[in-house]
């Protein structure tokens, strides 16, 4: 243990501001990156639902169009 008291530890021999600024920002940035990843993965999950809905819409539109062309007597492959 290099420091006699807690206040001495926080002051870091007069360099406390710089030491804590360096460590604090570094930790904050790392944690921020982690939370960004978490948030992205949530957003992706939400995106999947809209994507699935879009696929359904395309399928429905195609079905409607096929029915229509069959009604008109066109031959589709």
């Amino acid at each position, binding site marked *: 243990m290099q420091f006699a008291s807690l206040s001495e530890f926080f002051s870091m021999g007069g360099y406390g501001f710089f030491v804590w600024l360096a460590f604090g920002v570094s930790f904050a940035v790392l944690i921020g990156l982690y939370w960004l990843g978490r948030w992205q993965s949530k957003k992706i999950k939400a995106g999947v639902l809209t994507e699935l809905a879009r*696929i359904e819409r*395309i*399928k429905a539109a*195609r079905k409607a169009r096929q029915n229509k062309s069959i009604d008109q007597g066109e031959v589709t*492959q």
Partner: protein
Amino acid sequence: MVYCSPTSLIVGTILLTAENLSCIKQDRLLFSQLNFSVSAGNGLYIKGENGAGKTSLLRILTGLSQPAEGSVLWQQKDITSDFEEYATNLVYLGHKLGLNGNLSAIDNLVFWNTVNSIDDTTDLYELLSLLGLAGLEDMPVNRLSAGQQRRVSLARLWLKPAALWILDEPFNALDVQAVELLIDKIKSHITGGGSLVITSHLDMVTRLNCDVLHMEYNI
């Protein structure tokens, strides 16, 4: 460099083979497990709605794009093994015409002839007047209309004795006369033992007696 001129091929030999082609664009599977072959004296008409991947397929066949899976064979050899050799047997007309707008039709074609190592035996003026461009030969290409520009690019079909033509919507912007001219040219190419892969939204192609490949919009 040896040219595979269309006439030297026996009608019916398989020239171009697509093996298990699949293509992914923007994380969407456009098509998968596509198998077909095109033989000498035969054509393939690729049909399908917008976004079905016709252009992507054509670009894969030319070797400009890589398929996500599968391979393209030219006379049973993978085109990537000797791409230069494959390219000498190919004429590709895509959406982009490959003409520099600041150069004249003649300059563009002469340059194209040179890089393709084609000896100038064809009279370019005669060819361009056949294509309905008489008097426009030395005008910068970007002063021509869209249809006229496309005609200039079509001249390549007359210039390069290639066995395989890959044409992406060649009838775009062409007037009736030019369409007829092109159809005649394609017909004579096929009867001469050449082969063809073509896309078009016009039904003209049904007159060509091609095989048809129908591509669906894949979700």
